């Protein structure tokens, strides 16, 4: 299921590698970041801040704000993680928006197998792509010309579509979109998406 996403993840990883290169973050640091942080938007934010001459603190805060959503996401799927501490810690690292959303996809139950499979596939694409971008740099064209940003917007749209199975889900999606629209112009990146989690409350009290 995740196979078609691997080239997309690799291409995005390559664009992150190119960005890291222009921001004077070394190729090794960029690849280590992709392998350990494994969260695209946060990495792009951190490297952009560094490239713009911002300090380490600003880069780290920006990235962690973007990743704050992984706390509620992780809690929502915590029940499916079993086994020893280290195993849960390792498997948790495979949670990214795409793997989590695919694992929530078709059925109401969360599919841990899909999460881990998609997570590993996306990790390989993302980390490998980063290496290619950081080492080869400008040889690969601008990933935007392949429409990659539009691809991920469409991906999330498709994943939302698979979630709209009840009136409450509709309300939550509409609320999340509205919060994002309202906050994007007035808050730092990351906050709109984090705040959108509040839309999960839509219809909760009515239930």
């Amino acid at each position: 299921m995740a196979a078609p996403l691997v080239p997309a993840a690799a291409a995005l990883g390559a664009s992150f590698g190119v960005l890291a290169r222009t921001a004077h973050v070394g190729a090794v640091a960029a690849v280590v970041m992709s392998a350990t942080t494994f969260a695209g938007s946060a990495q792009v934010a951190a490297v952009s801040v560094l490239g713009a001459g911002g300090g380490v603190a600003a880069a780290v805060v920006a990235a962690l704000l973007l990743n704050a959503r992984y706390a509620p996401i992780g809690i929502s799927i915590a029940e499916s993680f079993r086994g020893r501490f280290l195993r849960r810690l390792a498997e948790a690292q495979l949670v990214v928006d795409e793997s989590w959303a695919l694992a929530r996809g078709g059925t109401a139950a969360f599919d841990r197998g899909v999460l881990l499979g998609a997570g590993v596939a996306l990790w390989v694409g993302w980390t490998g792509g980063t290496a290619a971008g950081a080492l080869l740099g400008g040889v690969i064209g601008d990933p935007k010309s392949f429409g990659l940003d539009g691809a991920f917007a469409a991906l999330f749209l498709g994943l939302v579509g698979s979630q709209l199975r009840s009136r409450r889900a509709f309300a939550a999606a509409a609320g999340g979109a509205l919060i994002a629209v309202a906050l994007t112009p007035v808050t730092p990146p990351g906050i709109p998406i984090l705040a959108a989690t509040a839309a999960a409350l839509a219809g909760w009290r009515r239930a």
Partner: protein
Amino acid sequence: MEARLSAAWASVIAVGAGTAALKAVGPVVVGGRRLPPRLLELLSMLAPALLAALVIDEGFASGRSLVLDARVAGLAAGAMAVVLRAPIWVVVVAGAGATALVRLLT
């Protein structure tokens, strides 16, 4: 150059450790335990709420502004694929193709 390099590594380490901790909160701290059904119900609504916000972020956000650019064509093509009940990879390819095409033509 020396200073820039260490700033990069300091960021890599701090962002990596912070993200690992954020991702681990649920699976490690709560891990395997059954949550109350009411809470699970609430948490299951996180998916539509977050995904819809991600559509806005990926489709319209450019830094702190909301813009209409070639990505709108990608979203429209993706929406059409969704309505036609196409598999998710078709939705993704349609989104990339339409976005790239509009960018090429404009």
